[in-house]
C-alpha cells in the first residue's frame, strides 16, 4: 500500500511531539538540573558527590562539605582570588576544566578521610 509522503511527514512530527507532550502531561518530563520532576530544588548530599551540579557555586560546595573555598581553589589549581559566589561550571570551563574534575577531587578527598 502506497503511503502519501505528506502523511508520512505529519505522522513523524505527531509521533515525536506526542511522546514529548505525553510525558509532560504525565508529569515525568524534566529538563532542569536544578529541580526534580516534582519541582523540588536539588541540594548537595555529602554522601553523594554526584549531587554537585555545575550551576552550584563554590560557596555551596564549601558549605555543604565543610571545606574552605581556598582549599578547593588550591586543589583545583584555580586563582586564589576566584569569587566563591561564581558558578562551578563558569569557573571550571574558564580554566579549561570540567566540573567532573572537582567531583573526582571531592570523591578522592572523601575516600581519604575514611
Amino acid at each position, binding site marked *: *500500500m*502506497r*503511503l*502519501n*509522503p*505528506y502523511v*508520512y*511527514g505529519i*505522522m*513523524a*512530527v505527531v*509521533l*515525536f*511531539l*506526542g*511522546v*514529548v507532550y505525553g*510525558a509532560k502531561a504525565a508529569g*515525568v*518530563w*524534566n*529538563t*532542569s*538540573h*536544578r*529541580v526534580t*520532576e516534582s519541582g523540588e*530544588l536539588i541540594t548537595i548530599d555529602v554522601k553523594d558527590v*554526584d549531587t554537585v*551540579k*555545575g550551576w552550584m557555586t563554590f560557596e555551596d560546595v564549601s558549605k555543604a562539605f565543610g571545606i574552605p573555598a581556598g582549599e578547593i581553589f588550591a586543589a583545583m589549581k584555580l586563582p586564589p582570588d576566584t569569587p566563591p559566589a561564581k*558558578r562551578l561550571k563558569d569557573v571550571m*570551563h574558564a580554566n*579549561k576544566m570540567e*566540573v*567532573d574534575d572537582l567531583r573526582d577531587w571531592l570523591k578522592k578527598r572523601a575516600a581519604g578521610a575514611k
Partner: protein
Amino acid sequence: MGVQLGAIRRRPKGLAALWNVQNFRYLIQAGFLATVVVMAVRHALLPEGALTSPPSPEAYCPFGGIETLYQWITTGKYIHHATSSSLIVLGGVLLGSLALKSSFCGWICPFGTLQEALTGITRFFERRFRPVARFAKTLKARTRSLEVVDRYLRWGKYLMLAYFLYGTILAARMVFRPYDPYITALNITEATLGPGLIILIATVVLSFFTERPWCKYLCPLSPIVGLVGKLAPTKIERTSTYCKDCAICSVACPMNLPVATASRITAVDCNDCLKCVAVCPRAGALDLVLRWPWSKPAVAAK
C-alpha cells in the same frame, strides 16, 4: 484521477510548484531548527540563579538519552547533563524509527537541517553562477577516486557509537559531549578550542561540498535509528516495470545511495528525506509504501 502508472508525472508550474513534499519537509525542519535556536538563545540569556525555565536545548538531545540509559537502568539516576527529557526524547526517536524508519533524521533533526541548509547555499550558487558550477563539477570529477574512502569512512559512526557507549558505561559520564558538534553549536557562546569546535567547523566547511557529512561519517545516533528502522513498516521501493533507469534518484540522494539499482532501500544510511521519491519522473516507479518488515518487494528489480 491519478496519473497512469509508468507515465511521466506532470510537474506543476508557477506558485503551485512551491507546494511539494520537499518544501513541506523544509518547513518542518525549519520549525524544529528555529525552536532549538530560540531555546539556545533564551538559555544563554538565563540569569544566574534562575531555577527552571527556559531549558537548555541539550535537554532535547536524544544522544543524551543513550548515554544515560545504562546508568538509569542500573542505578535509577541520570548522568550529568542528562535529565528525564533526554530519555523521553530518545524514546520518541526510537518509536519514530520503529514506525517510520529514519523520519527523525530526515524530517526533525536540527543538526541535519543545518547541514542541508549549508549544502543548499552551494547548490544555489551552482545554479546561478556558471564558474561555481564548473568548479563543483571539476571537484566532483577529481574526487571520484575517493568513493572507496567514503565507503570505509561510513564505518566511523559505528566506531563512534561503540567507543562512546563503552566510555559512558565505564565512566558514568558523558564522554561524547566534548566531541559533540551539535552541543558545541548550542553552547557556541561558551565554546573553547577543543574537539567539539574542531568537528563543528569541519562539519560546517564539509557541508558546503558534500551533503550531511556528520550524518554520513560520524553521527553515533544514525546507526541506532537506521537499525531500529529496519523493523519499520514504511519502505521506499522501486518498481522495475515502471522505472526507466534514468538514475536521477541516485543523483538526488544526499547519502549517495544507489537507489536506481535497488528494489528496496534497506541501507541504514537512508534518512528518509524522500528526495529520491520526489524527483522520480515516472508514476509508480519509486514510492513510499507500507509493508511488513519481512515481506519481499512487490516487483523484483531488474
